[in-house]
């Protein structure tokens, strides 16, 4: 049987209905991550971005997620309640296709770290209208993944590359590890 392990999961809950577009979250995020802390601020360095189009009543705070080496093959475009959102509006990736979530001068990717070391993420603290709130919960997760899941994955690799190649790769990887 797989072992159970406890893990704390932090969820930032975003209630776009409560967002008033003030961008305090962007400001404080960039100030917190300045070096030394708070010595400067610049929303363009923020790891949260508020997509804000007042005349269309669009307000969406989006957090910086993983860095993507390449852009997606296609794009997505949402319409919700009659409001048309820009392409890739909800995507968290720092990706070559756009300027979001990159340092303005170096272009290095940015990623939300939940304000490590702070009691709560600062964007949450500074969003006093509760468009952003943070919840923590403990979750039990299974350490081991079920065998059949791996088998399905492996089977597809074998289909594609042949059994020998997959075995060689596994052997090489285990040597490195």
């Amino acid at each position, binding site marked *: 049987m797989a072992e159970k392990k406890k893990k704390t999961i932090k969820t930032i809950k975003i209630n776009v209905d409560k967002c*008033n577009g003030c961008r*305090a979250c962007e400001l404080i995020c960039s100030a917190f991550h300045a070096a030394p802390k708070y010595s400067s601020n610049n929303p363009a360095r923020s790891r949260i971005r508020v997509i804000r*189009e007042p005349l269309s009543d669009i307000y969406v705070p989006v957090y910086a997620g993983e860095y993507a080496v390449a852009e997606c093959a296609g794009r997505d475009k949402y319409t919700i309640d009659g409001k048309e959102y820009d392409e890739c509006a909800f995507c968290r990736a720092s990706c070559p296709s756009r300027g979001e979530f990159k340092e303005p001068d170096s272009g290095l990717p940015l990623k939300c770290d939940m304000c490590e070391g702070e009691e709560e993420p600062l964007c949450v603290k500074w969003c006093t209208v509760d468009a952003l709130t943070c919840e923590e919960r403990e979750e039990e997760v299974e350490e081991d993944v079920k065998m059949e899941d791996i088998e399905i994955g492996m089977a597809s690799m074998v289909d594609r590359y042949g059994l020998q190649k997959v075995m060689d790769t596994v052997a090489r990887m285990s040597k490195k590890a």
Partner: protein
Amino acid sequence: MRYAETGFNLEIDLTRGNIERVATDPKDTELYLGGLGTNAKIIWDRVPPEVEPFSPDNLLIFGAGLLCGTPATGCNRTIVTTISPQTKLMAFSMMGGFFAPELKYAGYDKVIFRGKSPDLVYLWINNDKVEIRDASHLKGKGAVETAEIIKKELKEPKAQVAAIGLAGENRVFFASVEQGRSSASRGGMGAVMGDKGLKAIVVRGTKDINLARPAEFMELCNDVMEYIKFRNDNPIPGVMPILAGLGSPQEMKVHDEKWHTENFMWGNSRTRRKDFWNKEIAAEWMNTMDGMRKRLISCYNCPMTCGATIQPPGLPTYMMKCFTKLTYTMAAMSDLEFGLGIAQSATEYGVDGFSAPQVMAFALELYEAGILTDEDFPGMPSDNNGRFYWLLDRIVRREGIGDILANGTYWAAKEIGNGAEAYAHNNIKKHEQLPLKLSMLNPIYFLMYCTGEKINITQIEGQFPQAPFATKEEREEFVKDWFQVPDEKFKQIFLDWEFRGEKSLPLYPTVQMCCDIVDWQERMHYIDDALGMCAGLSSFPLKPPYHIHNYPKFISSGAGIDMDEAKLTQAAKRYRTLVRANNIRRGLRRKDEKPPEDHWKKRFPELEKELLDTYYKFKGWNDQGIPTKESLHELGLDFVSEDFVKRGILTDSQEASPKETPSKKEKE
């Protein structure tokens, strides 16, 4: 390194198409802070009184406050300054929103325009890249529309745009500069912008703003946030809802229509309708507001949501704040649905929400009185709502009678003559005021109305309650946690203030007390306007989070300038005096410092004279309202007295000479 400020201004010569980035002197920051303070200094240095509002030599300055772009909550004001075509004085108008911080992030504290562009242009500031671009395709476009078009054509959805509409292009004296949910409306900033051939300023900035002592500054910010939360949870009891909380008057959030419609004046600031409100109207207006208001929205870095997106049926969405909610409705003796609808056109045209409705109501009064006739209104519809739309259109196009009305009630009345001047009855210094007429003289307000150079009472009042509280218990309760007072004596004044008897209006607060109260209220507004702070979190509401005790700390830890209460008070006095000096040079004298004749029914000429005499002395001004040599010297403004002597405004030997040099006579 410069802290809080960037240390650079942009100088734009529109005649020659020249763009320059100029380093500023940190000494000036120490003396005049920033925003209004340094704007006033620039006007003094570069715009002598001979320069007419529509001269290419007039400057149009967009100045971000000293602390804009720092984490200080609600610090987002752009202070627009120029010589007003309506008052012919130095005018300044503050706009909230997102423009000032963006300008700071782009690396500039101010944009200063001079000259005139032969063709319509807009300025595009993208960090270090600044260019003047053709705007001929935007001619005649609405202000909101313009912002949307520009952001699209530049592919810069995050750029901030300040633009004028048709009213500004046609130099309507009360044209505004519109910027998202905010605007600089008073004093005709939009007219000067239009005269310069400038349709819009567009800015995008992605640079850092630095703090001198971050830890200290952030602690102050956190205290302010905590206090805002406390005040939101604990509104002040015993005052009307819009005075109980923080923020710009919360007209979008609060249903206070009953109070305003029954206490403010309708039409051309004429009719009070004491029993206007009833259940049906309440239900109908509530329905209108809730139906059209999409969302409450804030300015940059502020939780207060004082504005709203409004979507009138069948019309484009626009943004609104404050009292414009009711000014059109009440001027036209109409309903809220009409008011919110016509405000959409007015916002696109870009006109001031106080002046425009009054000008139109004034025109219709003249029509009723037979001073203007059918010939002046060819094709005007017969229904009241229709007439207002018709008049607004004539005014912003300067067509027919609209060309005269576009100069505001004061100048229009002069031009129309035939007794029209009696109908331009609600002006101070030639500028339309709140539609408010009261009974008993209030000596505090008398002084503020007379001597205010912000011209608009909401930009002068605050801090001290507008009226006494009924019971001693209520007063004691109020002063308990009133730590914002600069001096304990203000608490006693308020505790003793009664509705009736010896210690009631107009003789109490005493003349001396009134001077102190007015001086405190005015000082706070002037500090806000230099720092770029929203008055709604500081000088305007009762018990605000920013006050004379924490401001010096914000300035020293933020901007790295050594500051204490005395030094800050002195700095505010310095540039406040410089604003006055600019206006004295332009002919402002005691005769101009008076409220509208009919503002109060019960007047007290002797008391009023004593008030003004004492206040002038208190401020270090002579009996004409001219700052004396001694007081100028004490403020380090000797260059002002030298200029005054040269112009014969002050003489070497005696204190004052009331005579005006011909150049400063109003051209009427």
